[in-house]
């Protein structure tokens, strides 16, 4: 009971592979169904910058050959899936000869740190607020003040980010505008560097936490209302257990389970929101890399970053799914 069965792990791994495959296929197929030729567009961009290119037709042909675009679509697809599964994403078009996977490798830790920490803080804070909102024995003062934390729930993180920059970076000058560390700072494990990172990371993290915690609070409130009506809660109180014990171990412990499923389901959306927050704050993570790709028409970079985002989010979901039976021993994963 409560332990992982082989069948469950295999099924979850299957879901992981299916998600990654669907996502990668979408970003391969849809641009090819759309009108327009990325290579021709690239060459016309270059010629717009450099005056005229006398042999643009040859250039287009050689680029097409270089990227294998002159082969049948099926061959291209198989090669693409093979390269993606071995993480060979090719050179960046705009930052030649840098490889996309190296650029992503530099950016990924920043996104993981920012998004991971912000999501964790928002999940914990939101669930506590939501549970307190629904609990009968919450003190009146807290009950009056807590709804204020839901004010920004419906606002997209990046818009709050713009407001925070205006207020705290432009106006009060408490925090820097952009970046993840001071100009010319060296990436190293020193106290001064960590202080810089916290100083730079506060505003983008706040933008994510404040706008997403209300979502968790509302979900938790709904779950806690149901849990609070259960007989075992009344029994626990009647037995004279300490209110905090009833709240945490009887109430929250049971109400949190669907919230963890919801966390797995919303990781993709959270990553999308963080991408734009990074762009607003010029934070050197995946989101800013993506913007860099958009500005330069760097299609291999865009595809590479998005591929890694898909894999990263799917991995996060897989980890949550594999931990879930350990948290919820009731569910037997033997069925079907």
């Amino acid at each position: 009971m409560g332990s992982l069965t082989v069948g469950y792990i295999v099924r979850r791994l299957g879901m992981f592979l299916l998600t990654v495959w669907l996502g990668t296929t979408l970003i391969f197929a849809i641009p090819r169904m759309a009108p327009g030729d990325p290579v021709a567009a690239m060459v016309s961009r270059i010629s717009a910058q450099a005056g005229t290119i006398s042999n643009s037709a040859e250039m287009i042909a050689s680029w097409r050959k270089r990227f294998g675009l002159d082969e049948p679509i099926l061959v291209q697809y198989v090669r693409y899936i093979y390269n993606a599964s071995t993480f060979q994403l090719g050179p960046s078009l705009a930052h030649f000869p840098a490889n996309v996977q190296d650029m992503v490798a530099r950016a990924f830790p920043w996104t993981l740190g920012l998004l991971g920490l912000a999501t964790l803080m928002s999940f914990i804070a939101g669930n506590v607020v939501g549970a307190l909102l629904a609990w009968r024995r919450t003190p009146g003062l807290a009950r009056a003040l807590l709804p204020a934390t839901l004010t920004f729930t419906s606002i997209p993180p990046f818009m709050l980010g713009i407001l925070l920059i205006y207020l705290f970076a432009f106006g009060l000058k408490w925090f820097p505008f952009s970046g993840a560390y001071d100009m010319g700072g060296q990436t190293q494990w020193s106290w001064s560097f960590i202080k810089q990172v916290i100083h730079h990371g506060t505003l983008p993290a706040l933008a994510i936490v404040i706008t997403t915690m209300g979502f968790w609070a509302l979900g938790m409130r709904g779950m806690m209302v149901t849990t609070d009506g259960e007989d075992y809660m009344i029994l626990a109180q009647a037995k004279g257990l300490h209110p905090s014990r009833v709240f945490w171990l009887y109430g929250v412990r049971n109400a949190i389970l669907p919230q963890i499923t919801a966390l797995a389901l919303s990781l993709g959306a959270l990553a999308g929101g963080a991408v734009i927050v990074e762009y607003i704050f010029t934070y050197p993570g995946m989101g800013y890399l993506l913007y860099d790709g958009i500005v330069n028409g760097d299609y291999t970079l865009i595809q590479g970053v998005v591929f890694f985002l898909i894999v990263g989010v799917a991995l996060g979901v897989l980890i949550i799914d594999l931990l879930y039976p350990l948290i919820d021993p009731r569910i037997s994963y033997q069925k079907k």
Partner: protein
Amino acid sequence: MTTEVIQEVALPEAPVGLNRWDSPWLNPKFIGGLLLVIFVVLLGIVGPLFWDITLARVASSPLNLPPVWVKNAPIMFPPPDPAHPLGTESNGRDMLALMMAAAPGSLRVGLIAAGLGMAVGILLGFTAGFIGGWPDAVIRTISDSVITIPSLAVLIVISSYVRQINIENMALLLALFAWPGPTRLIRAQVLSLRERGYVQMARLSGATTFDIMFKEMMPNLLPYLAASFTGNVSANILAATGLEALGLGPTRIPTLGMTIFYAIRAAAILRGMWWWWGFPILMLVIIFTGLFLMVVGLDEIANPRLRGIQAQ
């Protein structure tokens, strides 16, 4: 008081002398949210009757005017002009005209995408929940998988290839990811409704599957569907705004997100031109808050248990 909403909706003519003002649909949060959304719609419809909307075009107005009520603007800005009450931006667009021209478009993108997503969700959700078996397994697996794909990232790839985009195409793209949510929700609800007495009754009296789905179950699902649809409209406007803020939106017509994109690109935050990004954000906040209040209200309509516990 404790009459279940579900029954009220299903049997509108049954209770004699029912107080109309006691209807659960008169939820203050729902109505308040609806009014906010209607305000934005009216701004787009009525606004152009009173204000010259062509001022939203590039170079139709003087540059960098602050809003009229700004008394001590920094020296680099010209003095405010009553002809442009909300000010102008650096490409010579009048902010008031821009807001009137752009706001309804954002709502339209959200409505079209969410509508398509909802239609697919109803079809797949009913199929999965009602028929079960392998169609259920296939639908559930694929929707669970699509829901975890970071849709915004995939949409960025697509729209960076398709540079020329209009509102309708954008809505179509967004709809690609708008169906798994409603599908999951409807499937779960149908599964729980399927075993209810009145559905069994209808089945025993020989109602067709179609009739059971749309005449018996659908009315009971309405509050859930409405909540899901409203949430979806909001999510799709969010995605559209995100794409636009990255510069991937329609360029031929003004949109709120593209206005924010131009403002960021021109460093409007650091130049202190808060009216350039502030007004589009304000419009979007009104839209999002309105839709959010509607969702919370609809949740309370659908789930009477939530109604009692609003914070006092």
